[in-house]
C-alpha cells in the first residue's frame, strides 16, 4: 500500500454571514489521498467543493471558520497550528492552491518574478534575488513556460498563460499536495489541454506528491484523476475510482449527475437529457436525515428522518445512502436513472 499523503478526518467548517448566521458548507468530510494519486471532487454549484478546498488549507479568515476535524499532510496534523505557523510552514510548502479565478490571481501591478520573491521571502528564504530568479527560470523552463514571463505583468499574459504561470508559482516550493479549484474552466480547449498536461508533468516530475482536482466537468475528471468524489450539500455522497464513478455510480445523486453529462456523439440531440429536479438544501439549517431526500426519486419516509452514515463498500468505494447497494442496483434496471417528472 502506498504512503498516505493527505488524510482528512471529520472536517467541518462554516461561513458566518453578515447577519451572524452560520452556513455549514463542509460537513464532516473524511478521505485519504495516497502518494502519486489524484482525487477529483465533483458536484453542483454550491455543494461545497470550493469551500472544501479552502478549508483544507488550514488557514481560515472571515467569513470562513473552522469547526472541527483534522487535516494530516504527510503525517503532520496541521489543524492545530497557529495561523502564522500555517502561513509560514504549511502554505505553499505542504499544500498549495490554484484558485478558481486564476485570471485575477496575480497582483496587477507586480511583475511575476517580484511576486515569486515575495513568496520565497515570506517562507524565510535566505536566497538572493539572483538565486531566486535562477530557480524560477529553471522551474518555468522545465514546465515549458517561457522564461521572459517572469519579467511580465499579469496584464501582458493571455488567459492560458496566466493560468499556467499561477500553477508554476503555486508549486515553486514543491508542495506535497496541490489543490486545483476549477483551473481550466474558464479556458479554451487547447489552453485547457496545456493546463492538464502541466498538472500531469508536475506529478510525474515529483514536484507535487498528490493532487485534488475540483471541477463540475465530469468528463474532464475522468481524464485527469484516479479517483472521484461526489459532494452534495457539504457532504461526500459517494467516492470511488474514476471508472466506477463514471460508468457505475451507486448513489442516486451521483447517478443523476452522471446522467446529466453531454457526450458529443451521433444522436446526442435526440437523447432526452436527464436533469435532477429541485435545488440543494439550505445549509443554514441542514436537513435531518439524508440531505438529498427532498430531491431523490427513490426516497422513502425513512430517508427524511434517519441520519445517513457514509458506508465503505468493497473495492475502496463508499456511498452515503440508506438503501444497500444491491437494492439500489435493482432500482436502476434500465441502466440510467430517470429523474424527469412524468
Amino acid at each position, binding site marked *: 500500500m502506498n504512503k498516505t499523503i493527505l488524510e482528512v478526518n471529520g472536517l467541518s467548517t462554516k461561513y458566518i454571514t453578515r447577519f451572524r448566521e452560520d452556513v455549514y458548507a463542509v460537513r464532516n468530510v473524511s478521505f485519504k489521498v495516497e502518494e502519486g494519486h489524484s482525487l477529483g471532487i465533483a458536484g453542483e454549484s454550491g455543494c461545497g467543493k470550493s469551500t472544501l478546498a479552502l478549508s483544507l488549507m488550514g488557514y481560515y479568515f472571515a467569513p470562513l471558520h473552522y469547526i472541527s476535524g483534522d487535516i494530516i499532510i504527510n503525517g503532520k496534523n496541521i489543524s492545530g497550528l497557529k495561523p502564522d505557523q500555517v502561513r509560514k510552514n504549511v*502554505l505553499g510548502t505542504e499544500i498549495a492552491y490554484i484558485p478558481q479565478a*486564476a*485570471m485575477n490571481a496575480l497582483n496587477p*501591478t507586480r511583475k511575476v518574478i517580484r511576486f515569486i520573491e515575495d*513568496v520565497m521571502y515570506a517562507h524565510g528564504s535566505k536566497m538572493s534575488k539572483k538565486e531566486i530568479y535562477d530557480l524560477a527560470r529553471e522551474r518555468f523552463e522545465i514546465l515549458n513556460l517561457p522564461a521572459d514571463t517572469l519579467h511580465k505583468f499579469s496584464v501582458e499574459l493571455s488567459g492560458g498563460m496566466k493560468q499556467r504561470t499561477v500553477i508554476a508559482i503555486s508549486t515553486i516550493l514543491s508542495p506535497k499536495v496541490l489543490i486545483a479549484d476549477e483551473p481550466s474552466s474558464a479556458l479554451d480547449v487547447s489552453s485547457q489541454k496545456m493546463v492538464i498536461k502541466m498538472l500531469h508533468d508536475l506529478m510525474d516530475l515529483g514536484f507535487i506528491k498528490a493532487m485534488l482536482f475540483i471541477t463540475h466537468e465530469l468528463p474532464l475528471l475522468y481524464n485527469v484523476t484516479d479517483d472521484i468524489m461526489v459532494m452534495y450539500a457539504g457532504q461526500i455522497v459517494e467516492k470511488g475510482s474514476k471508472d466506477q464513478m463514471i460508468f457505475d455510480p451507486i448513489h442516486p445523486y451521483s447517478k443523476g449527475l452522471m446522467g446529466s453529462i453531454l457526450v458529443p456523439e451521433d444522436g446526442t440531440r435526440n437523447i432526452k437529457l436527464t436533469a435532477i429536479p429541485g435545488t440543494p438544501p439550505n445549509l443554514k439549517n441542514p436537513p435531518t436525515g439524508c440531505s438529498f431526500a427532498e430531491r431523490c426519486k427513490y426516497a422513502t419516509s425513512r430517508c427524511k428522518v434517519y441520519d445517513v452514515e457514509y458506508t465503505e463498500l468493497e473495492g475502496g468505494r463508499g456511498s452515503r445512502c440508506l438503501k444497500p447497494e444491491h437494492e439500489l442496483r435493482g432500482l436502476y434496471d434500465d441502466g440510467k436513472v430517470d429523474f424527469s417528472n412524468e
Partner: protein
Amino acid sequence: MDESRSTYKKIVHSGYFKYYRKKTLWFLATLVAAVILNFVLPRLMPGDPLAAIMARLAPGIQDTEALRRIYEHYMVQFGLDRPVIQQFFIYVGNLFRGDLGLSFSRFPRPVSEIIMSAMPWTIGLQLPAIIVGWFIGNILGAIAAYSRNGFDRVLMPTALFVSGIPAFGMAIILLTVFGLNLGWFPIAGGYGIHLLPHLSWQFIGSIIYHYHLPFMSIVLIAIGGQALGMRSMSIYELNADYVRYSRFMGIKDRTIVRYIFRNAMLPQVTGLALSIGTMMGGALVAEIIFGYPGLGTTLLRAIREGDYPLISGITLVITIMVLIAVFLLEIIYGLIDPRVKAAQFE
C-alpha cells in the same frame, strides 16, 4: 545604425510612448481651447470696462467732447477699436512674449506683473494643502478599510460630512470659530498689515501664522473626499482574487497590505487628476474669504472692476496650472500602473 533604428522603432511602438504621445496631444489641444475660451468669455461679460475706468479717472470732467476723446484714446490704446479676430491674434502673439496686456483697473501695471506677485501665494498655499490633504485622506481611508469596525464607524460619517461642506462653508466655519470666536488665528491677509514684505524671521513668522486657517480649510475638504474614495477602493482591493491567492501562498499580511495600498491608490491618482480643478476652484474661494493675497482675491477684484485683461490673464494662468497638474498626474499614472501600457495595444 541598424541597431539605433530598431531601438527607435521599439520606443515608438512601445505602449508607454503611445500613452505619452496621446496625453501630450490632449494637453496641447486643451491648452488651445483654454486660450480661445479665455479670450472670448470676458468679452461676453456685460458692462463696459472703459466706462468704468472713465468714471474713476475723470470724475470731474463735464465736457462730453473731452470725455469722448479720452474714451477713444483708450479704445486705441487697448486695441478695442480693431475687429475681434485681429484682437485675438494680437492677444496670442503677445502671449508668446509673456505679455498679457495692461491692467485696466491698475493701469498702467502689466497684468503679468500683477499675476507674478500673486502666484507664489496661491501656489504656496494650494500645492502643499492639496498634496497633504490627499496623502492624509488616503492613509485614513486605508486604515478605515482595514479596521472595519472601530475607526471606520467614526471616520466614515465624519468624512462624509466634511466632504459635503462646500469650500466657502468650510472657510467661513474656520474663520468664525478659530478666527473670530477663539481668536487663535488672524482672520484675513497673508501677513500682518503692519509689515512690509521683506526677508526676516518676523515676516516669515507672520506668514506662517496667517497660513493656518486657509491651509486647513483646503486640507480638511481634501481629506474628506479622498478618505471616502480610498476607503471604498481599499475594501474593493481587499476582496480581490489576488489578495486571497497571495494569502494562500503564505505571503505576510504586511506585504499584502502594501499590495492593497498601492493598488487602491491608483484610482485615487486619477481621482485627483479629475478633481484638481474643483479643488483649485474651492481653494480660490478660500483665498477670497481669508483675504489671502493670491490669485483668487486678485481675480475677484478684477471681476468687480471689469478688468478684462486681468481676468483673462488669471483664468488663463489657473487653467494652465490645472492642465499641467493633470498632465503630470497622468504621466505619473502611466509610470505606476502597468495596465496603462498594455491597454495601448488594444
